[in-house]
């Protein structure tokens, strides 16, 4: 398997999505080259050119898509996360009261039940 795991991601270099069409790839390439022409940024141009060569070759692109972990996929997009329907209420006297009474009711219930089972009818 062609190991291109550690190389730069051609999609990232051209700033395009994985499903980009050939026309989109070409467009992105030209746009990048305009911003990084060989005369003023030879290294940048080289990277862009190399990325373009990979993506415009159907075979190389297929191998890239199949045999590399996609680094560009956002690890966790917070905007996609589901939110609770109800906002968490702050601690207040009302919530404290509700909680304490419920605990007390539990204690009371336990004590009553223990008392009933302790005494034989």
């Amino acid at each position, binding site marked *: *398997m062609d190991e291109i795991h550690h190389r730069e991601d051609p999609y990232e270099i051209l700033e395009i999505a994985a*499903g*980009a*069409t*050939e026309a989109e790839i070409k467009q992105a390439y030209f746009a990048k080259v305009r911003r990084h022409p060989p005369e003023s940024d030879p290294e940048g141009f080289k990277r862009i050119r190399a990325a373009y060569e990979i993506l415009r070759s*159907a*075979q190389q*692109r*297929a*191998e890239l*898509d*199949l*045999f*590399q*972990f*996609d*680094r560009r*996929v956002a*690890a*966790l*997009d*917070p905007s*996609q*996360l*589901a*939110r*609770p329907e*109800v*906002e*968490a*209420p*702050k*601690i207040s*006297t009302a*919530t*404290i*009261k*509700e*909680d*304490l*009474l*419920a*605990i*007390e*009711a*539990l*204690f*009371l*219930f*336990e*004590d*009553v*039940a223990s*008392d*009933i*089972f302790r005494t034989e*009818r």
Partner: protein
Amino acid sequence: MGNKSKSKHRPGPSVVDLVELVRGHLRRGQGEEALENLRAAEAKLRQATQAPGQSPGKKISIPPHLVAAQNALPDLFARARLILARQEAEPRRKVEHLREAAARVPRDGRIALALVAARMMAGEKDAAAADFRRAAELLPSGGGLAARTLAMAALASGRPIEAKEALERVSPEERDAGWQRLATIVGLLGGLDARIEGVRESFPLLTGVEHLARGDRDAALRQFASSLAQDRQPTEAEAALLTTELFYAGAIRFEAGEDEAALSSLSEVLWIASSYRWRLPWMSRLTALGHTAANRLAPTNPSLSLKWWEAVARHFPDDPVARTNQALGLRARAIKAGIDGDFETCAKSWDEILLANPQNEEALKNLALAREKCGRPAEAIDAWRRLDRLWQQQFKQRAVESGFKERWLTLGHHIVKLLLDTGQPVSEVVDQLEAMLRHDPENLDLRRQAFDRLIEIELPERALKHLDKIEQQDGRNANTVVRRAVALADADRWKEAMSHFEEAIALDPGNQSFRRAFLLFLDREVSASLDRRNIQRAIDLLNRQLALDGAYFPAYGQLAGIKLSAGEYGEGKKLLEKIAEVVPDKWEIRIGIAKVYLQFDFAKDAARHFEFAVSLSDSFSCLEAIGKTYLEFDLPGKAVKYFDRAAEKADVEQLVELSNLMVDEGRRKDANRYLAMAKKADPLHPLPWLSDTLFLLEKRGAFLPGSAAYRKAQAALETAAKLTDANPAYQKYLEPIQAIRDEMKKSPVDRMIELLDRMEVGDDWEQDDDDFPNEFDSEPPFIPPPTRGKQRRR
């Protein structure tokens, strides 16, 4: 037999029996079982108290024991329901059980109190108050429990002073921990006016809550943390108290924006709460808090967030937020693990995602990749194939998608490569190729691969179908013709194969691989002809071979054999000499020629070629091969001459090999001689002694453990063993030595029978006197102590 007196219908347990059973269930806390038997008892009682055919209401006489049972049932029902209420986590179901209990024992004030408590837990304040009034009527003397219930009901209804007064009416002796706690709560929630004199106990939760109320969150946190370090088994209610403290600690941290600390606390709360049978009000706030914290944390600490979602999904499988976010979190973890090189985690995560969605394309691809990276190609193939099947199903719709077909083909080729790399059956490779061809029938490269693999697994007819399609698409040419010839040959359609080979050669006369293929085909045909004794055809085919390749010496050899067999010695010899001409520098060929001469008793010619072979290669291999050839023709004397020459160049193992050959020929003296040479060549090598042992054990006398041969064999074996132990390089001899030891332990009769089994017709025993003792005997060598490594214990 003997069963005539037995009744057909067994009566079953009586009401009294059932009541006893129920009491046992209640003692063991088995509410459901108790209820079941109670209902059965009730039904039986109904039957007993209402005689058939009587009008309802008519009085009948009930036996006393049934009356007692009847009187006991309500209380037993109530207790069963109480047990179930205790076991029930959901407050509303607790209430249901207790309502049933109260219906059975409407005069039991304590059941009424329990019902009040359950209603409080369920948040049914008004119903609780109503039930309390009933309970108060039933327990006019009050008591601690009644006072607490009244105080709680009052407090819940917003009447703290009434609560305070109810508690103050409890005598000092009855002011237990429950009273103390409730009194503290009343004071806390009711303000200064509701504080009761003499409240002693301080409860960390309540103290912490007090700090909270004053806005001192740090102090509250400290208070909550201090009580959490408990080292005892709490009751359900105590656990509720402790967990509530933990929850508040988490909530405080959440409100302070300390999401990590908050989520850790809340996760622990969730874990603890899931093991208890209570449901408290804050539990509905727990997930809301936790989800909000987890969402905020997700970008910076996705693993903690994911742990939270997984925990919630486990305990609340219907929680939609947990379900959605768990899937997202799992994906994030999987992706990060892949990028970080943690391929085991990566594979595990994607595998988990696939459980929920087996057709997740992204997951299949990444799982396969991760498995390859983990060095598990066979498992990777499984994932790749699943992806392949998915894409095949989608092929029609997605073929127009940019790059889809290329990806799919690349995948297919990769699967083929992995199948071959992992040694999977070629039939699976073929299946993969043919599956790809179904969607890409114009792909010639695939077809050619399919053809080649089908030939490999000897399915020529199927291969020919692919060849037909290749020719339809790409036309007929020399390559397709020769491929067809090979397939036809494999299909035993030799006439067609023949004509196609001829055609291929005609189309591309200079093609050496075509010639080679044709020659191999003709070899098979020559053998078949000779088997059928069709000599003329064999000759024709051999001549055809020579026409293809004038230096094809096997053809000369076969022709020579035919000629010599037919008595045409001159012709035959000429052909044999032609081989020597055509392949002048290979000693193996010379030996082959000599062999043919020997077959026809041309000993001098054979000897000439043997010597020529030696002149080409004066090596052990060549000399041994000559010796073996002579043995094949039953000329041991001549064989030994060459073996002697070989022995001069031989190492220990080769000398032992020569010795073994001589044993097989029954030439014990020569065998011993070579063995002695082996021992001399390397006195510290165990192999000659091992061989010696085996030779000695085949002597007739060696069957008896006391015999000289046996003792000698034993001595030789021990020498071999010592030499093996002394040098780690000879470890491989340990097993055969042990095998011989085991053999020698068998009874003489068993060993004799085994040897008889191995002997062939005409064989005879080794005579005891034959070379025993032999003139080449030598003393065991001095074995130096081992210089390194551990001695292997036997």
